[in-house]
Structures are given as structure tokens and as C-alpha cells.
């Protein structure tokens, strides 16, 4: 049966659709479709010219076939022809086909753009709207270039029809998202803002979305919108539901616009003007009051619309974080939703309350609902609601309730959905660490985590417990005792063996006096797990064993037996084999004193932000922490919020490894060095977040070519050459995937004072990188004055529907503009003496982080750009260099002396330069290389 086709549609199309639906099998359907495709193809190819109606019908059939999931490889030209028809419905089908089937790289784009141009200047508003819709649908850079000038005019012109204004506002918003400079500034700003005053509510709604996006980019320029938005909101909120006629939705006046206005205001701090501020607060109070009123309708649409405004108002109250009275009212309102029968409301209340919990003004009020939230964790049937409850518990946790909340979360973890276990483990670990009044409690919690959800305990978590135990003497004995007990369990998780192995290796001596945990018992207990463990854990255990040799010389023989065992010393695993043989030799060759030095207790780790927190932060919006709130705000006004966390930024952790403590040791021998580094492997790595990309910026200090960045999607390589004060970089972007990277664009910029010191000009890049292909971008740089920062490189593109953004830095550093300079000993020393004021010299004494190889050092200095001057320094082990740094404004002479001390594994690096600050900048760049 065929339903009536509305509005005298195309009968032929309906018959075809009906045929398809009557097909009894997939094969029959394909047969019918192929028949139709052949028919349409012959019509399109036929000599007889088709009239517009027929073209429209066939194009529509093709569209239907495509939407069924079949490929369409013809008909595009006919669709484009329809665009130039005078008949609206033919145009409309043409545009629909294009919006569904034509992508922005099509060869037909020039023709399409021409048709759009014609329609855009048409006097018929429905034609203009079709054109605007098409521009917004394609939304490419080419569209922005072609129509960026026209659309703003349409938007603010007095002659434009309201419906066209609405489309123009949203079309412009779409183009702005593709190409931000499409919006002219200056005089346009105020005209765009004043659309908020427009008589037509539809225009205001559309404009509000546009203004919201513009404000996010440039809050200052658009701050005039605040008072307009507040008065508009005020008029809506105080309107009776009959005032706004068709913009009232189920007795709620203009809910969509209210939400948009409330969102717009969340881009700013509370209004400065007391009048505006008062009015806004009145609006918010009215919205909260209305929530208390009896519903005007039983329909869910009524309550949804009302509550969508209410939740947005609460978001604004939380964002402003300045009115204690409103915050408490918001909290009470949300509290009542926590036990509402609508699942949606419970979900949203939990979500909103998470933000409230981060405000100091309402944190206590939120805590009153702890029991209800814990109950939600136990009784909600929907995992996404339970997830929200976990987030809220995490957010409302503080010193006073930490033990209870952690206990409840641990309890829930036993039955929690697999999808959220790992995150829960992280949260429990963070809370336990953050609020531990007593670190024995912390140790218990983490061991419980491993016991309950061992598979979900990531490296970060167990590295962290080790760090904390190593750093806190008061808990070491307890930790040793507790892990020892935990290891008694017949089937304990491998992560427990790792933690147990590490802790007993360091602190097993603290419980060795107890007859139940003598050295040999500890050793046998650990070794009973050995054969069940992965090679990595076995390697860790071998390190524990060699530490036991030091702690408990009486069991040396037993341990040597294990090391000697074929499964270890002849293990197929190279790491195990190496450790077994090195440890065995170590235990045989050296005296007890040397052994004690080599295998002494780990020194404390430097205190810094927990790497677990860094891991959690990577999850962008599911965490119930303050970041959530901040992320909504544009950077310009970020300072407004209180910095509650204070900690070290996550990216800071990346560079930690280089500065990880290398414990002081005397009598270092190669073999010993090896022993130590392998033992300390675990906790050091804890500081590395588990990122899956490589960022090699620092590798470019002494070389010009290489891979700058690489992850699973993209590889970015650099080839650079420099001469005098000029440089030229080739940046190679390689697509590693099997799909094209769309919307590819790069932005190279010098921020702040760097803009005055370095000129950077980049050639444009193609917007698409085909699968497996590589494109090149040329960049010219000129040094104007000496500089410290790197130019920024922002790469954005779409990969599998997700916008990707990489924030990188270009390896352009001051030393790239070095010209090596030859000179003899005499002139070197005379210049050295001339550059003798303290500001001209910079010196640093530091430990070697890489093997001290003279040849490698010489290569690095040459790569750094200076001339190596042999036979100048009386000490042949020292290195002396000279060079001139070129910039447009001046030339700076630089001299360098590097003195290695092999015994101490130290260097002293001295740089003198004819311009203040240059020596310091160079020093900062160079010393991490050694």
C-alpha cells in the first residue's frame, strides 16, 4: 500500500519506492534498483532533452537509492542543472541532492557556486534561503571565500526578510566555524549584537547562536551583548505564556531562546553594571520560583521545556559563583530532582550538582545529599546515571567524608560495569591519596583496589603507591606488613605481586624480625608467584631478589640458586637473562660494602602532581572536577575563576624523566649503573603519562631534520636550512591512516613578544591529505632580534568525524642563526676576557644524562651551530667554540667552553656573548643535550 503523497509529489517516485518495498529479498531489491539505474542512465544520456520535472524526478530517485545505502556515481551534473531552474521545487531537489551527495572537493563546485551566487542575489526570498542552506551544508573554506562578504550584509540589512536573516545568521555561523576571519569586525559588531533586540523571536534565536560563537572568540569586542541579553531574557521570563504566541511551547515562554541567552551569558563574569546584574538575578530568581509552581500541564514536554531553562539558569548561577543565596537554592532544587521519578532529571541533577560541588559557596550544601547519591550508585538501573553518581561522589569528596565515600566506591567497584571500572579505580586512588590523614589507610585502599579490580589498576596507580611509600617513612613498615599479608592469598593479582615485590625489596627488612615473615619466608612467598607472572613482573622480582641479597645476606645462597636457574640465566627473554646474569655476577664479585651502596634504599621521589590525576584529566569532560567548569569559558576571562587545583600542569610531567633523580653513588661501574637503572625503572616511568604520541621538539636543538611529532594518525617531519638571519623549513605532514584527513589546516604563529623578534611566513597547505599521502608546507623565517620562545604550530583536521587539534612548537631556536667562526687561541682568549661582565656570561654545572662520549659531544656542538676550535684549551678534554648569531638588528658574538668531568659524570658549561641575555638563552638550549 502506498500512503498519499503530500503536496502533489512525484507519482513515479512513489511507485518506485513502493516497488522496492515490495521486493521479497535483498537480491530482488538490487535487481530492481539496477533496472532503475539503467533506466535513469539512459534517460540522462538520451538525445531527447528531459524537461525539468523529469530531471527532478530522476534525481530524486537517485537520492532515494543512495539513502538506501547504494553507491551513486552519476546524476551529479543533472542535479547541478536543476539549480538553475526557475522552478522552486526543481531547485530544491537539486540543492537537496547536492547537500547529501556532493562533497566540497567535487569538480562541479565552480558551477554550484555560480548557481548559489545567482540565487543569493535573487529577489525571491525562498531562493535566497535555498542558497544559504546549501552554503551552510557544504560549509567549506571555498564557500567562506566566495560568500564571506555577502552574507554579513544580508544579515544586517534593513531590507532582508526575517526568514532570510535567520538563515543568514546560521549560515554565517557555519562559515565562521570553518574560517574564523569570515566575520568582519568594527562597525559590524554592534549591528550583529543588536539583532538580540530584533522584533522577530526566530531572528533572535538564530542570532543568539551566532553571537555565542563570536563571543567565545572575542569576548571583549562583543561584551555589549550582555545587557541586551539580560533585558531580552527578562522580557521572556516575565512574559505570560500568551504574550509570545507561537514561541510559547507547552506553556513555557520561548524556552529555546531562554536557554540560548543563558548560555550566552555564561561566557562572561557577572555583569559589572549593578542595574544589569540586579535584573539578571531577578530573572534567575524568577526561574527558580517557577520551578516551585504547580505544573501548568501534565505533558512531559512542559516539564522538559521548563527544566531545560531551569538547568541552564543553574549553570549560569554556578558559573557566576557569586550569589550564595542563589547557589543554595539551586542546590536544593537539584536535590529534589535526585529522587525524581524521571530518569532524565536524576541524570541531569547529578551532572549539575557535580559543578556545584566545586564551588566553595555550595560545597557544603551539596554534601547534604551524600546519602541519596550513594543510594543512586546502588539502585540506578542505567549505567550512565550511575556513572554520574560516581562523578558527583568524587566531586563532593573532602576530608570529612573521604573515608566513607571511598568505602562506598570500593564497594560499588565489586559489581561496577566494566566500562567504568578503570576510571573508578583512578578516582578512588586519587581521593585516597588526596585526603589520606593517615597513609596506612591509603595503602589499604590501594591494595583493596588491586584485590577487587586488579585488571583495571593501571601502571600509574601502582607506581604511585610505591612512590608514596618510598617517600613516607612512617608508612613503610605498615606497607611491608600489609603487602606481605596480601601476598598470602592463593590467587593474588599480578599487580599485587609487583607492588609486593617492590615494597618488600625496599622495606622487607622492617618486618624480617617477625618469625612469621623472616627473610626466607618473604623470599619463598614472592618466588611462589614468580612462575605465574609475565616477564616484566619477573624482571621486577629479580631486582627484588638482588636487593634481598643486600638486606639479608643469610639467604644469598638461595637467591643465587634462583638467578642461576636455566629459566632465568638462559631465559629466552633478553631482559631476564641480562638481569639474572648481571645480578649473579654482582653478588659474586663485589664486597658487601659496594653491594650496600649500589643497592641502597631508593631516595625519595620529588613531590609533584600525581600522574594519576594527569591521566584522569585527559578525559575531557567526565570527571566532576573544576576543569569542567573552566572549559566552558573562553581563555580571555579564565582568570576569573578561583584556581582550586593549584597543581602542576599535566604537560609539565612530560619532561620529567630527564630530570628524574639519579641517586648519588660512588664507585660507579658500568655494571652497577645498569643494575640501578633497571631497578628504578618502574617508578620513574610513573611520571610519564601514557600518551601514544611522540613529540620531539627538543631533539632539534642540534639538528635540522627529523620527525617532530608522530601519533597513530599523523607524522610531522621537518627539514630545515638556515643562513645568516634567514631560514627555510619544509614541514612534511604524512597521513598514516587509510582515510583522508579532511579540513586540514595549519596555523603558524609567533605569540607575544616573539612576534617582534621573529618573522614567520607560511605557504598555504591543501585542505585534504589523502590516505597514506604526504604533503609539504614551506615556511620562511627571519630573525629580527634575539628570542627565546618557539613559534607555535597548530594543526587541525577531521579524522573519523572527530576534530583533531595538535598544539606544537616549531623547532626554530636562537642557535639556528649561528655562523661558525674560526679563530686562533690568542684572539679567543682576548675576546673571552673582553666579555667579562656578569651579564655577558652564563654558566651551569650539571650531571651528565647521556654517556660522556667526546665524539658525540663534538658533533652536538657543531650541530648547535658553532665552530669547534681544537687545541685552544690547555686541557685536551675540554671543548671550545665560537660563533656569531645573526639577526636583522644586530650580530652577537658568542664563545663557549664545555668542561667534562668523567669521574664525577658532570659537566661545566660556560657561554659568553656580546649581548646580555643571549648567553643565558643559549645555555638553556644546549645543556639538556648532554
Amino acid at each position, binding site marked *: 500500500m502506498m500512503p498519499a503523497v503530500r503536496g502533489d509529489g512525484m*507519482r513515479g517516485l512513489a511507485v518506485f519506492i513502493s516497488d522496492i518495498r515490495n521486493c521479497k529479498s535483498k537480491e530482488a531489491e538490487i535487481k530492481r534498483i539496477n533496472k532503475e539505474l539503467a533506466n535513469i542512465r539512459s534517460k540522462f544520456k538520451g538525445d531527447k532533452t528531459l524537461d525539468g520535472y523529469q530531471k527532478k524526478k530522476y534525481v530524486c530517485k537517485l537520492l532515494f537509492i543512495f539513502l538506501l545505502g547504494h553507491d551513486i556515481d552519476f546524476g551529479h551534473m543533472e542535479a547541478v542543472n536543476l539549480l538553475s531552474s526557475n522552478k522552486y*521545487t526543481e531547485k530544491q531537489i537539486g540543492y537537496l541532492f547536492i547537500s547529501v551527495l556532493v562533497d566540497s572537493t567535487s569538480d562541479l563546485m565552480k558551477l554550484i557556486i555560480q548557481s548559489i551566487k545567482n540565487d543569493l542575489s535573487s529577489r525571491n526570498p525562498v531562493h535566497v534561503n535555498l542558497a544559504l542552506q546549501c552554503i551552510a551544508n557544504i560549509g567549506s573554506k571555498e564557500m567562506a571565500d566566495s560568500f564571506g562578504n555577502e552574507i554579513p550584509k544580508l544579515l544586517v540589512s534593513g531590507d532582508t526578510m526575517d526568514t532570510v536573516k535567520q538563515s543568514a545568521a546560521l549560515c554565517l555561523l557555519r562559515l565562521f566555524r570553518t574560517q574564523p576571519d569570515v566575520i568582519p569586525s568594527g562597525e559590524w559588531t554592534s549591528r550583529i549584537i543588536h539583532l538580540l533586540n530584533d522584533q522577530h523571536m526566530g531572528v533572535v534565536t538564530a542570532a543568539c547562536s551566532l553571537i555565542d560563537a563570536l563571543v567565545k572568540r572575542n569576548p571583549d569586542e562583543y561584551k555589549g551583548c550582555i545587557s541586551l541579553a539580560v533585558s531580552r531574557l527578562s522580557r521572556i521570563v516575565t512574559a505570560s505564556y500568551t504574550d509570545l504566541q507561537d514561541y510559547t511551547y507547552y506553556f513555557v515562554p520561548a524556552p529555546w531562546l531562554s536557554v540560548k541567552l543563558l*548560555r550566552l551569558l555564561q561566557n562572561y563574569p557577572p555583569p559589572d553594571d549593578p542595574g544589569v546584574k540586579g535584573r539578571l538575578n531577578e530573572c534567575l530568581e524568577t526561574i527558580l520560583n517557577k520551578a516551585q509552581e504547580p505544573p501548568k500541564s501534565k505533558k512531559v514536554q512542559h516539564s522538559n521545556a521548563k527544566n531545560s531553562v531551569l538547568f541552564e539558569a543553574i549553570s549560569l548561577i554556578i558559573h557566576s559563583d557569586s550569589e550564595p543565596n542563589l547557589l543554595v537554592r539551586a542546590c536544593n532544587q537539584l536535590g529534589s530532582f535526585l529522587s525524581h521519578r524521571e530518569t532524565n532529571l536524576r541524570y541531569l541533577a547529578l551532572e549539575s550538582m557535580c559543578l556545584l560541588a566545586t564551588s566553595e559557596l555550595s560545597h557544603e550544601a551539596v554534601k547534604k545529599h551524600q546519602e541519596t547519591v550513594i543510594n543512586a550508585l546502588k539502585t540506578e538501573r542505567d549505567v550512565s546515571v550511575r556513572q554520574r553518581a560516581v562523578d558527583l561522589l568524587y566531586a563532593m569528596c573532602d576530608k570529612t567524608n573521604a573515608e566513607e565515600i571511598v568505602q562506598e566506591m570500593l564497594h560499588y567497584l565489586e559489581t561496577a560495569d566494566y566500562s567504568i571500572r578503570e576510571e573508578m579505580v583512578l578516582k578512588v586512588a586519587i581521593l585516597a591519596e588526596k585526603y589520606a590523614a593517615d597513609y596506612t589507610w591509603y595503602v589499604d585502599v590501594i591494595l583493596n583496589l588491586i584485590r577487587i579490580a586488579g585488571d583495571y589498576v593501571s601502571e600509574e596507580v601502582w607506581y604511585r603507591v610505591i612512590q608514596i611509600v618510598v617517600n613516607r617513612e612512617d608508612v613503610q613498615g605498615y606497607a611491608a606488613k600489609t603487602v606481605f599479608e596480601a601476598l598470602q592469598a592463593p590467587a593474588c593479582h599480578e599487580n599485587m605481586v609487583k607492588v609486593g615485590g617492590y615494597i618488600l625489596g625496599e622495606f622487607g627488612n622492617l618486618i624480617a624480625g617477625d618469625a612469621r615473615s623472616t627473610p626466607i619466608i618473604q623470599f619463598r612467598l614472592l618466588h611462589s608467584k614468580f612462575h605465574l607472572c609475565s616477564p616484566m613482573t619477573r624482571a621486577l622480582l629479580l631486582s627484588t631478589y638482588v636487593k634481598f641479597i643486600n638486606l639479608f645476606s643469610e639467604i644469598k645462597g638461595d637467591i643465587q640458586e634462583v638467578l642461576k636457574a636455566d629459566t632465568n640465566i638462559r631465559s629466552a627473554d633478553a631482559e631476564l637473562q641480562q638481569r639474572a646474569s648481571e645480578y649473579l655476577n654482582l653478588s659474586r664479585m663485589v664486597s658487601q660494602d659496594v653491594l650496600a651502596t649500589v643497592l641502597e634504599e631508593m631516595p625519595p621521589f620529588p613531590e609533584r602532581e600525581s600522574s594519576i590525576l594527569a591521566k584522569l584529566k585527559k578525559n575531557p569532560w567526565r570527571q566532576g572536577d573544576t576543569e569542567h567548569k573552566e572549559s566552558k569559558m573562553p581563555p580571555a576571562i579564565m582568570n576569573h575563576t578561583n584556581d582550586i587545583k593549584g597543581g602542576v600542569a599535566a604537560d609539565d610531567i612530560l619532561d620529567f624523566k630527564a630530570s628524574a633523580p639519579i641517586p648519588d653513588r660512588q664507585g660507579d661501574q658500568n655494571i652497577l649503573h645498569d643494575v640501578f637503572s633497571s631497578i628504578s625503572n618502574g617508578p620513574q616511568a610513573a611520571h610519564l603519562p601514557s600518551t601514544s604520541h611522540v613529540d620531539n621538539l627538543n631533539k632539534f636543538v642540534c639538528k635540522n631534520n627529523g620527525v617532530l611529532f608522530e601519533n597513530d594518525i599523523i607524522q610531522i617531519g621537518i627539514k630545515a636550512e638556515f643562513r645568516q638571519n634567514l631560514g627555510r623549513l619544509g614541514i612534511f605532514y604524512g597521513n598514516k591512516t587509510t582515510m583522508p584527513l579532511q*579540513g586540514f589546516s595549519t596555523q603558524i604563529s609567533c605569540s607575544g613578544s616573539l612576534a617582534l623578534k621573529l618573522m614567520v611566513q607560511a605557504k598555504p597547505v591543501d585542505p585534504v591529505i589523502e590516505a597514506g599521502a604526504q604533503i609539504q608546507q614551506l615556511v620562511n623565517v627571519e630573525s629580527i632580534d634575539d628570542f627565546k620562545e618557539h613559534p607555535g604550530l597548530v594543526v587541525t583536521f577531521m579524522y573519523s*568525524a572527530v576534530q583533531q587539534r595538535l598544539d606544537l612548537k616549531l623547532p626554530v631556536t636562537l642557535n639556528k642563526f649561528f655562523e661558525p667562526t674560526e679563530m686562533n687561541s690568542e684572539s679567543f682568549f682576548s675576546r673571552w676576557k673582553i666579555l667579562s661582565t656578569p651579564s655577558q656570561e652564563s654558566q651551569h654545572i650539571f650531571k651528565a644524562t647521556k654517556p660522556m662520549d667526546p665524539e658525540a659531544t663534538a658533533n652536538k656542538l657543531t650541530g648547535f651551530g658553532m665552530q669547534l676550535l681544537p687545541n685552544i684549551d690547555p686541557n685536551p678534554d675540554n671543548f671550545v667554540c665560537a660563533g656569531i648569531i645573526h639577526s636583522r638588528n644586530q650580530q652577537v658574538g658568542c664563545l663557549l667552553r664545555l668542561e667534562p668531568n668523567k669521574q664525577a659524570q658532570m659537566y661545566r658549561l660556560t657561554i659568553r656573548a656580546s649581548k646580555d641575555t643571549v648567553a643565558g638563552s643559549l645555555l638553556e638550549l644546549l645543556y639538556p643535550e648532554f
Partner: protein
Amino acid sequence: MMHFMLLFSRQGKIRLQKWYVAVLDKVKKKIMRELTTIILTRQSKMCSFIEWKDLKIVYKRYASLHFCCAIDPDENELMYLEVIHRYVELLDRYFESVCELDIIFNFEKAYFILDELIMGGEIQETSKIGIIRSIEAQDELQQAETPQGFFEDYGLG
């Protein structure tokens, strides 16, 4: 902002898809497969919002059809739930008690109505009267422009 909207049947057949961001066809298919499976396996009392990748999915079932849209995670979920409802109301008004077949046979109309409601992923017009009026104006144009003939009426054209 809305990233896309999907309509699909209880059997998981897509009845309408509208994308407001550039996505490759291959990826579209994968997303549709994934979401229809997720939504069709959810029970009726569960909440209408799902966190999915870095988006939020808002969905609701009307008779045999599921309506679902993907929005930015910080968007107002209830507002988009009512956007879906408004769309359903418009379809219902236009087709005089809409059913799945109406949308199959008049898919282009379903698109045109959606285009009036949403553009570039943002709400363009919320007034039901306003939207119905412009769709009806389109129909009048269509009627005036369509040649009426025997062959066409019987699908022989």
C-alpha cells in the same frame, strides 16, 4: 551544536540522516551502525542521554521510529530532546498523523521540514506555525509547477 540527526526503525533501518559536520561516508555508516545498536538495546525507563565518544546522544522513540541526535557534551540535553519533539510535531502536523511510511515515501519533505527547523546544527526557527506556513508555501509552488497528466498519475512517466 548538533552534529547529526538520525531517524531509524525498530529493525535498525535508517529512515533519515542529516549531518551538520563533514564526515566520510564510510565513517557515517559505522556511526549509524554503532548508534542504532546501542539505542535499540536500551530499556525503556533508561535515561534519554548517552555519553558517546566526545559527544552526547539525545534520543527518544516515537511509535516505531527512533529519533536521535548527537550534540556537543556541554549542550542543554533537555532542549534538544524538545527539538526532537518539535520535529515530530511538525511531521505529524504536515502528514496528518505521521507514520513511518510517510517518511519513507516523502523523505524529501522530511528533509525540507528539518531544514526549516535546524540549520548548520543550530536551531533556526521554533515556531510551529511559522514552519508549517513555509512548508505549505513550498507545496503550493510545487502544485503550481507540476504538470498534471494521466501518465504521471499512474507512475508511467
